[in-house]
């Protein structure tokens, strides 16, 4: 088939809401867009293990500790589902990791903030996973099959993440005055970074138009952000925790809340590598990768031996 026919065929599939699969013809820019988005998503899951991993050894109870371990392990799993989804687009795992380690690929800005107190673990589960779920529920219907299937699996696992976070917030919000203050402090620090997770405002988002056109995304950054705010306000009210926004107000006409923008200059700063923890996060990943080198080599040598035995048998 001529490229033009192939492109028409591709467009027709999208128009019918059919999924694109790895062996289907796809425009090169569609492929590149997906590699960028899926790998960024995978890296976010893996780097996202670091701020929470920070609290595993200091969790306040054994129950809290096993819950947090299970959650962080899930995030590692999410990263692996997504890496293999990206690999169906003709890029190797090694290249993907290399892009993370050299700073060529990005990950979510949110994971460059510090987790200073136990309440931050509550706020991260409740708000950060909550925001991620909003995005991931939409992505279950993304147009690329392997990405959509990974999302279905991830969404099933995510709801426990958000609930365990909210449970931590409940304990603190209804605890001693000091605990309540700790919960409020976490909210104060995490609210705006969470709003940034949905990406730039639609008007300033260079990648959005293509993502919508190709049905990779089915809702815009602003739509998802609005829905997140609408859902979260009542959850915060129940806790008696104040959302740090003087402009937060119900708007009857749009049937949603008006709210303030996060500081987009801060967002851009973090995206460009100057957040509180950018260096530390990448440093930790590179170190883990380098320290794991001999393990990979040993596993490869052992595997080679095993496979030779299988062939001989």
């Amino acid at each position, binding site marked *: *088939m001529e490229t033009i026919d192939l492109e028409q065929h591709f467009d027709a599939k999208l128009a019918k809401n059919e999924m694109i*699969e790895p*062996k*289907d*013809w796809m425009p090169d820019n569609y492929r590149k867009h997906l590699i960028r988005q899926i790998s960024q998503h995978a890296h976010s899951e893996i780097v996202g293990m670091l701020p929470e991993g920070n609290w595993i050894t200091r969790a306040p109870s054994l129950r809290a500790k096993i819950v947090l371990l*299970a959650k962080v*392990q*899930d995030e590692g*799993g999410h990263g*692996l*589902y997504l890496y*293999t989804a990206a*690999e169906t687009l003709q890029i*190797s*795992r*090694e290249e993907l*990791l290399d892009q993370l380690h050299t700073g060529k690929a990005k990950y979510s800005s949110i994971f460059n903030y510090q987790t200073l107190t136990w309440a931050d673990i509550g706020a991260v589960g409740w708000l950060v996973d909550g925001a991620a779920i909003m995005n991931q529920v939409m992505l279950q219907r993304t147009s690329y099959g392997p990405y959509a*299937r*990974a999302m279905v*699996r991830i969404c099933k*696992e995510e709801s426990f993440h958000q609930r365990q976070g909210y449970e931590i917030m409940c304990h603190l919000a209804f605890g001693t005055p000091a605990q309540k203050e700790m919960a409020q402090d976490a909210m104060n620090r995490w609210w705006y970074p969470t709003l940034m997770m949905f990406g730039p405002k639609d008007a300033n988002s260079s990648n959005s138009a293509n993502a919508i056109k190709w049905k990779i995304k089915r809702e815009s950054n602003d739509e998802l952000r609005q829905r997140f705010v609408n859902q979260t306000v009542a959850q915060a009210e129940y806790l008696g925790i104040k959302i740090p926004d003087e402009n937060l107000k119900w708007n009857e006409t749009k049937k949603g809340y008006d709210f303030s923008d996060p500081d987009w200059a801060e967002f851009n700063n973090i995206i460009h590598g100057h957040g509180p923890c950018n260096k530390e996060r990448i440093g930790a990943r590179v170190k883990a990768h380098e320290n794991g*080198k001999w393990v*990979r*080599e040993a*596993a*490869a040598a*052992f*595997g*080679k031996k*095993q*496979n030779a035995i*299988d062939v001989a048998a």
Partner: protein
Amino acid sequence: MSENTDSQGTLWEIFVQKKAGQPFVHCGSLHAFDKEMALQNARDLYTRRGEGTAIWAVPASAIVASSPEDMGPFFDTTNDKVYRHPTFYQIPEGIKYI
């Protein structure tokens, strides 16, 4: 088995059987260096919540797949064989258990 092209092991496709007697269903892929590691990784990655009681791990390179381009002609031959379906046949009114 395909060659190790990088330091990340080879790609395996994982199929999980939810309960005895049910079909094995593809659930995703992973990297591993040998059969045993493939099974262990599959357990850790795809059955963390009792999603399965048995696993097949297949080297991705061993899978033969049809291509989307010949999807039409490849499957065409079955389209005109309506007589393969039970609804093709007329059974007299009142006949039961058939």
